[in-house]
Protein backbone atom coordinates (compact mmCIF):
# COMPACT_ATOMS: atom_id res chain seq x y z
CA UNK A 1 0.00 0.00 0.00
CA UNK A 2 3.04 2.25 -0.10
CA UNK A 3 2.32 5.65 -1.58
CA UNK A 4 -1.39 5.53 -0.99
CA UNK A 5 -3.05 8.10 1.16
CA UNK A 6 -4.05 6.78 4.51
CA UNK A 7 -7.75 6.81 3.87
CA UNK A 8 -7.83 5.31 0.43
CA UNK A 9 -9.03 1.84 -0.29
CA UNK A 10 -7.47 -1.19 -1.81
CA UNK A 11 -9.35 -2.15 -5.00
CA UNK A 12 -10.16 -5.46 -3.42
CA UNK A 13 -12.37 -3.64 -0.94
CA UNK A 14 -15.04 -3.17 -3.60
CA UNK A 15 -17.08 -6.18 -2.68
CA UNK A 16 -20.39 -5.10 -4.07
CA UNK A 17 -22.23 -2.67 -6.31
CA UNK A 18 -20.26 0.06 -8.02
CA UNK A 19 -20.30 1.87 -11.33
CA UNK A 20 -23.29 3.05 -13.30
CA UNK A 21 -26.45 0.98 -13.62
CA UNK A 22 -30.08 2.05 -13.91
CA UNK A 23 -30.79 1.17 -10.30
CA UNK A 24 -27.50 2.41 -8.79
CA UNK A 25 -28.78 5.54 -7.12
CA UNK A 26 -26.29 5.34 -4.25
CA UNK A 27 -23.42 3.35 -5.69
CA UNK A 28 -22.98 4.57 -9.27
CA UNK A 29 -19.84 6.54 -8.42
CA UNK A 30 -18.39 3.89 -6.10
CA UNK A 31 -15.11 2.69 -7.54
CA UNK A 32 -14.19 6.14 -8.89
CA UNK A 33 -10.56 6.69 -7.84
CA UNK A 34 -10.30 9.01 -4.84
CA UNK A 35 -14.05 9.52 -4.59
CA UNK A 36 -13.54 10.12 -0.87
CA UNK A 37 -11.81 13.41 -1.71
CA UNK A 38 -13.99 16.49 -1.79
CA UNK A 39 -12.56 17.68 -5.13
CA UNK A 40 -13.32 14.38 -6.84
CA UNK A 41 -16.75 14.11 -5.31
CA UNK A 42 -17.57 17.64 -6.51
CA UNK A 43 -16.21 16.96 -10.00
CA UNK A 44 -18.89 14.29 -10.22
CA UNK A 45 -21.67 16.58 -9.15
CA UNK A 46 -21.25 16.24 -5.39
CA UNK A 47 -22.76 18.96 -3.18
CA UNK A 48 -24.79 20.26 -6.11
CA UNK A 49 -27.88 19.00 -4.29
CA UNK A 50 -26.94 20.76 -1.09
CA UNK A 51 -26.33 23.98 -3.00
CA UNK A 52 -29.65 23.60 -4.79
CA UNK A 53 -31.41 22.92 -1.50
CA UNK A 54 -29.93 25.98 0.18
CA UNK A 55 -30.39 28.34 -2.74
CA UNK A 56 -33.51 27.22 -4.53
CA UNK A 57 -35.65 25.28 -2.10
CA UNK A 58 -37.44 25.92 1.15
CA UNK A 59 -37.24 23.35 3.94
CA UNK A 60 -40.89 22.55 3.28
CA UNK A 61 -40.17 21.83 -0.37
CA UNK A 62 -37.42 19.38 0.57
CA UNK A 63 -39.74 17.73 3.04
CA UNK A 64 -42.39 17.42 0.33
CA UNK A 65 -39.90 15.72 -2.02
CA UNK A 66 -38.89 13.26 0.68
CA UNK A 67 -42.54 12.45 1.31
CA UNK A 68 -43.16 12.02 -2.40
CA UNK A 69 -40.17 9.69 -2.70
CA UNK A 70 -41.81 7.16 -0.39
CA UNK A 71 -38.39 6.63 1.24
CA UNK A 72 -38.53 4.44 4.34
CA UNK A 73 -35.84 4.27 6.99
CA UNK A 74 -33.00 1.88 6.20
CA UNK A 75 -31.92 1.37 9.82
CA UNK A 76 -34.25 -1.49 10.63
CA UNK A 77 -37.80 -0.45 11.31
CA UNK A 78 -38.62 0.83 7.82
CA UNK A 79 -40.48 3.85 9.13
CA UNK A 80 -41.50 6.39 6.42
CA UNK A 81 -38.85 9.09 6.48
CA UNK A 82 -41.11 11.96 5.43
CA UNK A 83 -43.53 11.12 8.24
CA UNK A 84 -40.72 10.97 10.80
CA UNK A 85 -39.56 14.41 9.72
CA UNK A 86 -43.03 15.84 10.28
CA UNK A 87 -42.83 14.93 13.99
CA UNK A 88 -40.12 17.55 14.52
CA UNK A 89 -41.84 20.55 16.08
CA UNK A 90 -41.46 23.70 14.02
CA UNK A 91 -41.95 26.37 16.63
CA UNK A 92 -39.55 25.42 19.44
CA UNK A 93 -36.77 27.99 19.84
CA UNK A 94 -33.16 26.96 20.53
CA UNK A 95 -30.91 24.27 19.10
CA UNK A 96 -32.14 21.12 17.39
CA UNK A 97 -30.07 18.27 16.07
CA UNK A 98 -29.71 15.80 13.26
CA UNK A 99 -28.27 12.58 14.67
CA UNK A 100 -26.91 10.02 12.24
CA UNK A 101 -27.09 6.41 13.31
CA UNK A 102 -23.81 4.89 12.17
CA UNK A 103 -23.66 2.31 14.94
CA UNK A 104 -24.15 -0.57 12.51
CA UNK A 105 -23.92 -3.52 14.86
CA UNK A 106 -26.76 -5.73 13.70
CA UNK A 107 -25.13 -9.10 12.93
CA UNK A 108 -24.80 -9.57 9.18
CA UNK A 109 -24.93 -5.87 8.38
CA UNK A 110 -22.04 -3.96 6.80
CA UNK A 111 -23.71 -1.69 4.25
CA UNK A 112 -23.23 1.63 6.06
CA UNK A 113 -19.52 0.92 6.37
CA UNK A 114 -19.38 0.10 2.65
CA UNK A 115 -21.19 3.32 1.85
CA UNK A 116 -19.02 5.57 3.99
CA UNK A 117 -15.74 3.93 2.98
CA UNK A 118 -16.56 4.55 -0.65
CA UNK A 119 -18.16 7.95 -0.37
CA UNK A 120 -18.00 9.71 3.00
CA UNK A 121 -19.19 12.90 1.35
CA UNK A 122 -22.40 11.23 0.21
CA UNK A 123 -23.38 10.80 3.86
CA UNK A 124 -22.15 14.26 4.82
CA UNK A 125 -24.10 15.90 2.01
CA UNK A 126 -27.23 14.05 3.12
CA UNK A 127 -26.66 15.08 6.74
CA UNK A 128 -26.32 18.73 5.66
CA UNK A 129 -29.50 18.63 3.58
CA UNK A 130 -31.32 17.13 6.57
CA UNK A 131 -30.07 19.93 8.83
CA UNK A 132 -31.45 22.56 6.49
CA UNK A 133 -34.73 20.67 6.07
CA UNK A 134 -35.50 20.53 9.78
CA UNK A 135 -34.06 23.90 10.78
CA UNK A 136 -30.97 22.49 12.47
CA UNK A 137 -27.42 23.79 12.34
CA UNK A 138 -25.68 20.81 13.90
CA UNK A 139 -25.46 17.16 12.95
CA UNK A 140 -23.86 14.49 15.12
CA UNK A 141 -22.69 11.26 13.56
CA UNK A 142 -22.69 8.45 16.09
CA UNK A 143 -20.16 5.99 14.69
CA UNK A 144 -19.37 2.66 16.28
CA UNK A 145 -15.99 2.68 17.99
CA UNK A 146 -14.54 -0.21 16.02
CA UNK A 147 -14.92 1.60 12.71
CA UNK A 148 -11.41 3.06 12.59
CA UNK A 149 -11.08 3.65 8.87
CA UNK A 150 -14.55 5.11 8.32
CA UNK A 151 -13.87 7.37 11.29
CA UNK A 152 -10.59 8.63 9.84
CA UNK A 153 -12.23 9.13 6.48
CA UNK A 154 -15.03 11.17 8.01
CA UNK A 155 -12.58 13.23 10.04
CA UNK A 156 -10.72 14.11 6.86
CA UNK A 157 -13.86 14.74 4.84
CA UNK A 158 -15.26 17.07 7.51
CA UNK A 159 -11.95 18.93 7.60
CA UNK A 160 -12.10 19.37 3.82
CA UNK A 161 -15.63 20.74 4.13
CA UNK A 162 -14.58 23.23 6.80
CA UNK A 163 -11.74 24.44 4.62
CA UNK A 164 -14.06 24.79 1.63
CA UNK A 165 -16.56 26.70 3.76
CA UNK A 166 -19.34 24.20 3.12
CA UNK A 167 -19.37 23.56 6.84
CA UNK A 168 -19.33 26.92 8.53
CA UNK A 169 -21.38 30.11 8.77
CA UNK A 170 -22.10 30.66 5.06
CA UNK A 171 -22.18 27.50 2.94
CA UNK A 172 -22.31 28.47 -0.75
CA UNK A 173 -22.66 32.06 0.36
CA UNK A 174 -26.00 31.34 1.98
CA UNK A 175 -26.60 32.60 5.47
CA UNK A 176 -27.36 29.17 6.93
CA UNK A 177 -24.64 27.79 9.24
CA UNK A 178 -24.01 24.05 8.98
CA UNK A 179 -21.84 21.78 11.09
CA UNK A 180 -21.14 18.07 11.55
CA UNK A 181 -19.47 16.48 14.57
CA UNK A 182 -18.43 12.90 15.20
CA UNK A 183 -19.03 10.83 18.31
CA UNK A 184 -17.47 7.40 18.68
CA UNK A 185 -19.35 4.54 20.31
CA UNK A 186 -17.68 1.97 22.50
CA UNK A 187 -18.94 -1.45 21.68
CA UNK A 188 -22.53 -2.04 22.70
CA UNK A 189 -25.13 -3.25 20.23
CA UNK A 190 -27.89 -1.54 22.14
CA UNK A 191 -26.41 1.84 21.16
CA UNK A 192 -28.00 1.34 17.73
CA UNK A 193 -31.44 1.60 19.29
CA UNK A 194 -32.35 5.22 18.88
CA UNK A 195 -33.06 6.22 22.47
CA UNK A 196 -30.11 4.22 23.83
CA UNK A 197 -27.96 5.98 21.24
CA UNK A 198 -29.07 9.33 22.59
CA UNK A 199 -28.27 8.25 26.14
CA UNK A 200 -24.84 7.20 24.95
CA UNK A 201 -24.30 10.47 23.12
CA UNK A 202 -25.11 12.24 26.35
CA UNK A 203 -22.36 10.28 28.10
CA UNK A 204 -24.52 7.78 29.93
CA UNK A 205 -24.89 4.03 30.00
CA UNK A 206 -26.77 3.21 26.82
CA UNK A 207 -30.12 2.08 28.15
CA UNK A 208 -33.26 2.75 26.12
CA UNK A 209 -35.64 5.44 27.30
CA UNK A 210 -39.31 4.80 27.58
CA UNK A 211 -41.33 6.66 24.98
CA UNK A 212 -43.03 9.15 24.78
CA UNK A 213 -41.45 11.63 24.65
CA UNK A 214 -40.08 10.67 21.26
CA UNK A 215 -36.66 11.89 20.10
CA UNK A 216 -38.32 14.19 17.57
CA UNK A 217 -39.63 16.25 20.46
CA UNK A 218 -37.09 15.55 23.20
CA UNK A 219 -33.98 13.95 21.79
CA UNK A 220 -30.29 14.72 22.17
CA UNK A 221 -29.65 16.86 25.27
CA UNK A 222 -33.40 17.29 25.58
CA UNK A 223 -33.71 19.05 22.23
CA UNK A 224 -35.82 18.22 19.14
CA UNK A 225 -33.82 15.63 17.22
CA UNK A 226 -34.07 13.92 13.88
CA UNK A 227 -32.47 10.50 14.03
CA UNK A 228 -31.86 8.63 10.79
CA UNK A 229 -29.70 5.82 9.53
CA UNK A 230 -26.65 6.47 7.31
CA UNK A 231 -28.18 4.99 4.18
CA UNK A 232 -31.48 6.81 4.70
CA UNK A 233 -29.68 10.16 4.70
CA UNK A 234 -27.39 9.21 1.82
CA UNK A 235 -30.47 9.03 -0.41
CA UNK A 236 -31.21 12.73 0.07
CA UNK A 237 -28.76 14.15 -2.49
CA UNK A 238 -30.32 11.99 -5.21
CA UNK A 239 -33.85 12.86 -4.16
CA UNK A 240 -33.11 16.59 -4.10
CA UNK A 241 -31.40 16.32 -7.48
CA UNK A 242 -34.01 14.23 -9.30
CA UNK A 243 -37.13 14.83 -7.26
CA UNK A 244 -39.14 12.51 -5.05
CA UNK A 245 -41.39 11.34 -7.86
CA UNK A 246 -38.50 9.94 -9.85
CA UNK A 247 -37.23 8.12 -6.77
CA UNK A 248 -40.68 6.64 -6.26
CA UNK A 249 -40.46 5.32 -9.82
CA UNK A 250 -38.14 2.65 -8.45
CA UNK A 251 -39.37 -0.16 -6.25
CA UNK A 252 -42.83 -1.49 -5.57
CA UNK A 253 -45.98 -0.44 -3.74
CA UNK A 254 -44.97 0.78 -0.29
CA UNK A 255 -41.29 -0.07 -0.73
CA UNK A 256 -39.89 2.61 -2.99
CA UNK A 257 -36.43 3.14 -4.33
CA UNK A 258 -33.38 0.97 -3.88
CA UNK A 259 -31.55 -0.33 -0.87
CA UNK A 260 -28.19 -1.77 0.03
CA UNK A 261 -28.19 -5.42 0.99
CA UNK A 262 -25.09 -6.87 2.62
CA UNK A 263 -24.94 -10.54 1.69
CA UNK A 264 -22.71 -12.72 3.85
CA UNK A 265 -22.25 -16.26 5.07
CA UNK A 266 -22.18 -19.24 2.73
CA UNK A 267 -22.23 -17.54 -0.65
CA UNK A 268 -19.53 -17.41 -3.30
CA UNK A 269 -19.54 -13.62 -3.72
CA UNK A 270 -20.34 -12.00 -0.38
CA UNK A 271 -20.70 -8.25 -0.74
CA UNK A 272 -22.91 -5.19 -0.51
CA UNK A 273 -25.38 -4.99 -3.36
CA UNK A 274 -27.68 -2.14 -4.26
CA UNK A 275 -30.99 -3.55 -5.49
CA UNK A 276 -34.27 -2.08 -6.59
CA UNK A 277 -36.81 -2.98 -3.91
CA UNK A 278 -39.01 -5.81 -5.09
CA UNK A 279 -36.34 -8.15 -6.50
CA UNK A 280 -36.42 -11.61 -4.98
CA UNK A 281 -33.97 -13.10 -2.53
CA UNK A 282 -33.30 -15.75 -5.15
CA UNK A 283 -31.91 -12.99 -7.36
CA UNK A 284 -29.90 -11.51 -4.51
CA UNK A 285 -28.49 -14.74 -3.11
CA UNK A 286 -28.19 -16.98 -6.16
CA UNK A 287 -27.29 -14.42 -8.82
CA UNK A 288 -25.69 -11.35 -7.26
CA UNK A 289 -23.91 -13.25 -4.50
CA UNK A 290 -23.23 -16.33 -6.59
CA UNK A 291 -25.17 -18.84 -4.49
CA UNK A 292 -23.72 -21.33 -2.00
CA UNK A 293 -20.37 -23.06 -2.54
CA UNK A 294 -20.37 -25.79 -5.23
CA UNK A 295 -22.20 -28.89 -4.12
CA UNK A 296 -24.06 -27.11 -1.33
CA UNK A 297 -27.65 -25.96 -0.99
CA UNK A 298 -29.03 -22.94 0.77
CA UNK A 299 -30.61 -24.16 3.97
CA UNK A 300 -31.83 -20.90 5.43
CA UNK A 301 -31.37 -17.15 5.17
CA UNK A 302 -31.92 -14.21 7.47
CA UNK A 303 -33.32 -11.55 5.14
CA UNK A 304 -32.68 -8.44 7.25
CA UNK A 305 -29.96 -8.99 9.83
CA UNK A 306 -30.01 -11.52 12.63
CA UNK A 307 -33.08 -9.84 14.13
CA UNK A 308 -35.24 -10.67 11.12
CA UNK A 309 -36.94 -14.07 11.49
CA UNK A 310 -35.14 -16.72 9.43
CA UNK A 311 -36.64 -18.12 6.23
CA UNK A 312 -36.02 -21.58 4.71
CA UNK A 313 -34.74 -22.26 1.18
CA UNK A 314 -38.29 -22.85 -0.03
CA UNK A 315 -38.92 -19.13 0.45
CA UNK A 316 -36.12 -17.83 -1.77
CA UNK A 317 -38.71 -16.38 -4.12
CA UNK A 318 -39.98 -14.00 -1.48
CA UNK A 319 -39.25 -10.44 -2.55
CA UNK A 320 -37.33 -7.66 -0.86
CA UNK A 321 -40.55 -5.64 -0.60
CA UNK A 322 -40.81 -4.78 3.10
CA UNK A 323 -44.52 -5.51 3.24
CA UNK A 324 -44.18 -8.88 1.56
CA UNK A 325 -41.48 -9.81 4.06
CA UNK A 326 -43.83 -8.83 6.87
CA UNK A 327 -46.59 -10.97 5.34
CA UNK A 328 -44.38 -14.06 5.39
CA UNK A 329 -43.49 -13.44 9.02
CA UNK A 330 -40.13 -11.75 8.68
CA UNK A 331 -38.89 -8.24 7.95
CA UNK A 332 -36.57 -6.15 5.81
CA UNK A 333 -34.68 -5.04 8.91
CA UNK A 334 -31.16 -3.78 8.36
CA UNK A 335 -30.67 -5.30 4.91
CA UNK A 336 -28.16 -7.83 6.20
CA UNK A 337 -28.76 -11.06 4.30
CA UNK A 338 -27.08 -13.96 6.08
CA UNK A 339 -27.01 -17.18 4.10
CA UNK A 340 -26.44 -20.58 5.68
CA UNK A 341 -25.85 -23.72 3.63
CA UNK A 342 -26.82 -27.30 4.38
CA UNK A 343 -23.51 -28.16 6.04
CA UNK A 344 -24.48 -26.03 9.05
CA UNK A 345 -26.69 -26.73 12.04
CA UNK A 346 -29.62 -24.44 12.71
CA UNK A 347 -29.60 -25.11 16.44
CA UNK A 348 -25.96 -24.14 16.72
CA UNK A 349 -26.55 -20.98 14.67
CA UNK A 350 -29.51 -20.04 16.85
CA UNK A 351 -27.44 -20.64 19.97
CA UNK A 352 -24.79 -18.24 18.65
CA UNK A 353 -27.35 -15.54 18.01
CA UNK A 354 -29.01 -16.04 21.38
CA UNK A 355 -25.63 -15.70 23.06
CA UNK A 356 -25.31 -12.39 21.22
CA UNK A 357 -28.66 -11.08 22.44
CA UNK A 358 -28.02 -12.29 25.99
CA UNK A 359 -24.63 -10.59 25.96
CA UNK A 360 -25.98 -7.36 24.50
CA UNK A 361 -29.10 -7.09 26.64
CA UNK A 362 -28.62 -3.84 28.52
CA UNK A 363 -30.21 -5.30 31.63
CA UNK A 364 -32.71 -2.53 32.19
CA UNK A 365 -35.86 -4.54 31.62
CA UNK A 366 -36.43 -7.92 33.23
CA UNK A 367 -38.08 -9.98 30.45
CA UNK A 368 -35.13 -9.34 28.16
CA UNK A 369 -32.37 -9.82 30.72
CA UNK A 370 -33.82 -12.96 32.25
CA UNK A 371 -35.34 -14.38 29.07
CA UNK A 372 -32.22 -14.23 26.93
CA UNK A 373 -30.12 -15.68 29.73
CA UNK A 374 -32.55 -18.52 30.32
CA UNK A 375 -32.68 -19.27 26.60
CA UNK A 376 -28.90 -19.28 26.32
CA UNK A 377 -28.56 -21.83 29.10
CA UNK A 378 -31.22 -24.00 27.53
CA UNK A 379 -29.39 -23.97 24.20
CA UNK A 380 -26.14 -24.91 25.95
CA UNK A 381 -27.85 -27.90 27.57
CA UNK A 382 -29.33 -29.07 24.29
CA UNK A 383 -26.04 -28.78 22.42
CA UNK A 384 -24.16 -30.57 25.20
CA UNK A 385 -26.46 -33.50 24.58
CA UNK A 386 -28.41 -33.04 27.81
CA UNK A 387 -31.62 -31.82 26.23
CA UNK A 388 -35.09 -33.10 27.01
CA UNK A 389 -38.67 -32.42 25.94
CA UNK A 390 -38.79 -29.92 28.77
CA UNK A 391 -36.03 -27.87 27.16
CA UNK A 392 -37.98 -27.55 23.93
CA UNK A 393 -40.95 -26.43 25.99
CA UNK A 394 -38.79 -23.85 27.75
CA UNK A 395 -37.70 -22.45 24.40
CA UNK A 396 -41.30 -22.31 23.21
CA UNK A 397 -42.23 -20.45 26.35
CA UNK A 398 -39.27 -18.06 26.43
CA UNK A 399 -39.60 -16.98 22.80
CA UNK A 400 -43.13 -15.89 23.53
CA UNK A 401 -42.19 -14.14 26.76
CA UNK A 402 -39.61 -12.03 24.92
CA UNK A 403 -42.00 -10.78 22.28
CA UNK A 404 -44.92 -8.47 21.74
CA UNK A 405 -43.90 -5.37 23.56
CA UNK A 406 -43.05 -7.06 26.82
CA UNK A 407 -39.58 -5.54 26.57
CA UNK A 408 -38.61 -1.89 26.55
CA UNK A 409 -37.03 -2.01 23.11
CA UNK A 410 -36.78 -4.26 20.09
CA UNK A 411 -33.84 -6.32 21.35
CA UNK A 412 -36.04 -8.71 23.28
CA UNK A 413 -38.34 -9.26 20.32
CA UNK A 414 -35.36 -10.00 18.11
CA UNK A 415 -34.12 -12.69 20.47
CA UNK A 416 -37.60 -14.17 20.62
CA UNK A 417 -37.84 -14.24 16.84
CA UNK A 418 -34.56 -16.15 16.51
CA UNK A 419 -35.99 -18.96 18.61
CA UNK A 420 -39.49 -18.78 17.17
CA UNK A 421 -38.46 -18.77 13.52
CA UNK A 422 -35.74 -21.40 13.72
CA UNK A 423 -38.06 -23.72 15.66
CA UNK A 424 -40.90 -23.10 13.27
CA UNK A 425 -38.97 -23.95 10.12
CA UNK A 426 -36.47 -26.46 11.51
CA UNK A 427 -38.27 -28.18 14.38
CA UNK A 428 -36.83 -31.55 13.35
CA UNK A 429 -33.27 -30.31 13.91
CA UNK A 430 -34.18 -29.19 17.42
CA UNK A 431 -35.85 -32.50 18.19
CA UNK A 432 -32.94 -34.49 16.84
CA UNK A 433 -30.52 -32.52 19.03
CA UNK A 434 -32.62 -32.34 22.15
CA UNK A 435 -34.20 -35.78 22.15
CA UNK A 436 -31.75 -38.02 20.30
CA UNK A 437 -28.46 -36.15 20.60
CA UNK A 438 -28.12 -36.07 16.84
CA UNK A 439 -27.00 -33.23 14.61
CA UNK A 440 -28.93 -33.54 11.35
CA UNK A 441 -26.42 -31.26 9.60
CA UNK A 442 -23.54 -33.40 10.82
CA UNK A 443 -21.80 -30.28 12.06
CA UNK A 444 -21.93 -30.56 15.81
CA UNK A 445 -19.67 -32.84 17.70
CA UNK A 446 -22.31 -35.30 18.87
CA UNK A 447 -23.40 -38.73 17.82
CA UNK A 448 -23.99 -38.46 14.08
CA UNK A 449 -27.17 -39.45 12.29
CA UNK A 450 -27.11 -43.15 11.58
CA UNK A 451 -24.14 -43.76 13.85
CA UNK A 452 -24.45 -46.34 16.60
CA UNK A 453 -23.81 -45.21 20.12
Amino acid at each position, binding site marked *: *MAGETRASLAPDDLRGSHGPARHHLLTSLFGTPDLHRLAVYREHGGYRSLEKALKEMTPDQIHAEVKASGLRGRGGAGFPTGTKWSFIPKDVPGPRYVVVNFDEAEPGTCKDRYLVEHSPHLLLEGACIAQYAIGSHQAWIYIRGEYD*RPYRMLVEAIEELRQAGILGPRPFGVDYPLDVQLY*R*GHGAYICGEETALLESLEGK*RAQPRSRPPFPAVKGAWGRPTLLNNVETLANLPWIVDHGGAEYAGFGVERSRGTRLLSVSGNVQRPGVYEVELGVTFRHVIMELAGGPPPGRRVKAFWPGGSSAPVLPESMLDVSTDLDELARVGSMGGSGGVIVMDDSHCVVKAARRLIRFYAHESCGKCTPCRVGTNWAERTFERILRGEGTVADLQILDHVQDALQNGRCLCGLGDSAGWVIMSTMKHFREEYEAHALRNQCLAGECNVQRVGAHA
Partner: protein
Amino acid sequence: MALSKHAIEEIKALPQRFPEIRSAVVPALDIAQEELGYLTPEAMSEVASLLQVDPGYVEGVATFYTLFHLEPVGEHHFYVCTNLSCMLRGAEEICEHIRRRIGVSREREISADGRFSYEEVECLGACEFAPMMRYAHAYHYELTPEKIDALIEAARSARPASARAGVIDRPESQEAEQGHGR
Protein backbone atom coordinates in the same frame (compact mmCIF):
# COMPACT_ATOMS: atom_id res chain seq x y z
CA MET B 1 -0.09 4.59 36.59
CA ALA B 2 -1.01 8.18 36.11
CA LEU B 3 -2.03 9.94 32.94
CA SER B 4 0.55 11.92 31.00
CA LYS B 5 0.42 15.66 30.78
CA HIS B 6 -0.54 15.38 27.15
CA ALA B 7 -3.50 13.13 27.92
CA ILE B 8 -4.63 15.43 30.70
CA GLU B 9 -4.60 18.40 28.35
CA GLU B 10 -6.58 16.48 25.78
CA ILE B 11 -9.17 15.44 28.34
CA LYS B 12 -9.52 18.97 29.64
CA ALA B 13 -10.19 20.21 26.12
CA LEU B 14 -13.06 17.77 25.58
CA PRO B 15 -16.05 19.34 27.36
CA GLN B 16 -16.16 22.40 25.12
CA ARG B 17 -17.04 20.15 22.19
CA PHE B 18 -20.33 19.10 23.75
CA PRO B 19 -23.52 20.77 24.94
CA GLU B 20 -23.12 18.94 28.27
CA ILE B 21 -20.04 17.80 30.13
CA ARG B 22 -21.11 14.19 30.59
CA SER B 23 -20.75 13.58 26.87
CA ALA B 24 -17.00 13.98 27.40
CA VAL B 25 -16.75 11.01 29.78
CA VAL B 26 -16.46 8.28 27.15
CA PRO B 27 -14.01 10.16 24.91
CA ALA B 28 -11.93 10.88 28.03
CA LEU B 29 -11.89 7.23 29.02
CA ASP B 30 -10.83 6.47 25.48
CA ILE B 31 -7.81 8.72 25.80
CA ALA B 32 -6.93 7.13 29.12
CA GLN B 33 -7.20 3.60 27.76
CA GLU B 34 -5.16 4.41 24.67
CA GLU B 35 -2.39 5.59 26.92
CA LEU B 36 -2.49 2.96 29.64
CA GLY B 37 -3.75 -0.06 27.74
CA TYR B 38 -6.61 -0.56 30.19
CA LEU B 39 -8.61 1.48 32.65
CA THR B 40 -7.11 1.36 36.10
CA PRO B 41 -9.25 2.53 39.03
CA GLU B 42 -6.86 5.48 39.40
CA ALA B 43 -7.28 6.43 35.76
CA MET B 44 -11.04 6.40 36.16
CA SER B 45 -10.94 8.63 39.20
CA GLU B 46 -8.48 10.92 37.47
CA VAL B 47 -10.89 11.25 34.55
CA ALA B 48 -13.70 11.91 37.02
CA SER B 49 -11.84 14.70 38.74
CA LEU B 50 -10.64 16.27 35.47
CA LEU B 51 -14.22 16.43 34.23
CA GLN B 52 -15.67 17.14 37.65
CA VAL B 53 -18.12 14.29 37.61
CA ASP B 54 -18.76 11.63 40.21
CA PRO B 55 -16.18 8.76 40.15
CA GLY B 56 -18.98 6.21 40.55
CA TYR B 57 -20.60 7.63 37.46
CA VAL B 58 -17.43 7.24 35.43
CA GLU B 59 -17.02 3.66 36.56
CA GLY B 60 -20.65 2.91 35.72
CA VAL B 61 -20.07 4.12 32.20
CA ALA B 62 -16.76 2.32 31.80
CA THR B 63 -18.22 -1.01 32.85
CA PHE B 64 -21.11 -0.71 30.40
CA TYR B 65 -19.13 -0.48 27.17
CA THR B 66 -17.26 -3.55 26.03
CA LEU B 67 -14.43 -1.68 24.31
CA PHE B 68 -13.17 -0.57 27.69
CA HIS B 69 -10.80 -2.98 29.38
CA LEU B 70 -10.86 -3.01 33.15
CA GLU B 71 -8.02 -5.48 33.28
CA PRO B 72 -4.76 -5.60 31.35
CA VAL B 73 -4.74 -7.14 27.89
CA GLY B 74 -1.78 -8.13 25.76
CA GLU B 75 0.16 -5.45 23.99
CA HIS B 76 -1.14 -7.09 20.81
CA HIS B 77 -4.82 -7.77 21.32
CA PHE B 78 -6.91 -9.42 18.63
CA TYR B 79 -10.65 -8.77 18.54
CA VAL B 80 -11.94 -11.75 16.58
CA CYS B 81 -15.51 -11.65 15.35
CA THR B 82 -17.33 -14.90 16.07
CA ASN B 83 -20.85 -13.84 15.18
CA LEU B 84 -22.90 -15.78 12.67
CA SER B 85 -21.47 -14.71 9.30
CA CYS B 86 -17.93 -15.19 10.58
CA MET B 87 -18.81 -18.42 12.36
CA LEU B 88 -20.21 -19.82 9.12
CA ARG B 89 -16.84 -19.15 7.50
CA GLY B 90 -14.51 -20.59 10.09
CA ALA B 91 -14.16 -18.09 12.95
CA GLU B 92 -14.00 -20.88 15.52
CA GLU B 93 -10.99 -22.45 13.81
CA ILE B 94 -9.32 -19.04 13.69
CA CYS B 95 -9.77 -18.60 17.44
CA GLU B 96 -8.43 -22.07 18.06
CA HIS B 97 -5.40 -21.32 15.93
CA ILE B 98 -4.73 -18.07 17.77
CA ARG B 99 -4.96 -19.82 21.14
CA ARG B 100 -2.45 -22.41 20.00
CA ARG B 101 -0.04 -19.93 18.48
CA ILE B 102 0.06 -17.53 21.41
CA GLY B 103 -0.23 -20.30 23.99
CA VAL B 104 -3.37 -19.35 25.88
CA SER B 105 -6.35 -21.50 26.77
CA ARG B 106 -9.09 -18.90 26.71
CA GLU B 107 -9.95 -15.39 25.61
CA ARG B 108 -8.46 -12.45 27.51
CA GLU B 109 -5.71 -14.65 28.94
CA ILE B 110 -2.34 -13.01 28.30
CA SER B 111 0.45 -15.02 26.69
CA ALA B 112 3.45 -15.99 28.82
CA ASP B 113 5.61 -13.29 27.25
CA GLY B 114 2.95 -10.76 28.18
CA ARG B 115 2.56 -9.60 24.61
CA PHE B 116 -0.51 -11.30 23.15
CA SER B 117 -4.15 -11.86 23.96
CA TYR B 118 -7.36 -12.22 22.07
CA GLU B 119 -11.03 -11.68 22.60
CA GLU B 120 -14.13 -13.05 20.86
CA VAL B 121 -16.39 -10.22 19.86
CA GLU B 122 -19.74 -9.65 18.22
CA CYS B 123 -20.31 -8.64 14.59
CA LEU B 124 -17.81 -5.97 13.56
CA GLY B 125 -19.73 -4.89 10.48
CA ALA B 126 -17.41 -6.36 7.87
CA CYS B 127 -19.29 -9.60 7.31
CA GLU B 128 -18.56 -9.66 3.58
CA PHE B 129 -14.92 -10.33 4.48
CA ALA B 130 -15.59 -13.09 7.05
CA PRO B 131 -13.84 -14.36 9.00
CA MET B 132 -12.31 -11.14 10.17
CA MET B 133 -10.88 -9.36 13.18
CA ARG B 134 -9.85 -5.94 14.44
CA TYR B 135 -6.25 -5.52 15.53
CA ALA B 136 -4.11 -2.41 16.00
CA HIS B 137 -6.91 -0.08 14.93
CA ALA B 138 -7.48 -1.81 11.63
CA TYR B 139 -9.62 -4.56 10.19
CA HIS B 140 -8.00 -7.74 8.95
CA TYR B 141 -10.04 -9.64 6.44
CA GLU B 142 -10.57 -13.22 5.25
CA LEU B 143 -8.41 -14.64 7.98
CA THR B 144 -6.52 -17.87 7.49
CA PRO B 145 -4.07 -19.60 9.84
CA GLU B 146 -1.28 -18.34 7.56
CA LYS B 147 -2.40 -14.72 7.86
CA ILE B 148 -2.59 -15.07 11.65
CA ASP B 149 0.91 -16.54 11.72
CA ALA B 150 2.26 -13.69 9.63
CA LEU B 151 0.71 -11.06 11.91
CA ILE B 152 2.05 -12.76 15.01
CA GLU B 153 5.51 -13.06 13.45
CA ALA B 154 5.49 -9.38 12.52
CA ALA B 155 4.38 -8.44 16.01
CA ARG B 156 7.05 -10.60 17.63
CA SER B 157 9.80 -9.02 15.60
CA ALA B 158 8.47 -5.51 16.13
CA ARG B 159 9.81 -3.48 18.99
CA PRO B 160 7.69 -3.97 22.13
CA ALA B 161 4.93 -1.48 22.89
CA SER B 162 4.87 -0.29 19.29
CA ALA B 163 1.23 -1.13 18.90
CA ARG B 164 0.15 1.36 21.45
CA ALA B 165 2.04 4.50 20.56
CA GLY B 166 0.14 7.72 20.95
CA VAL B 167 -3.51 8.52 21.29
CA ILE B 168 -6.66 8.00 19.26
CA ASP B 169 -5.86 10.39 16.47
CA ARG B 170 -2.30 9.28 16.01
CA PRO B 171 -1.11 8.81 12.46
CA GLU B 172 -1.76 5.52 10.80
CA SER B 173 0.42 2.77 12.13
CA GLN B 174 2.21 0.26 10.01
CA GLU B 175 -0.15 -2.46 11.14
CA ALA B 176 -3.15 -0.43 10.14
CA GLU B 177 -1.89 -0.11 6.58
CA GLN B 178 -1.17 -3.80 6.35
CA GLY B 179 -4.65 -4.58 7.54
CA HIS B 180 -6.28 -3.17 4.48
CA GLY B 181 -3.59 -4.08 2.02
CA ARG B 182 -3.71 -7.78 2.67
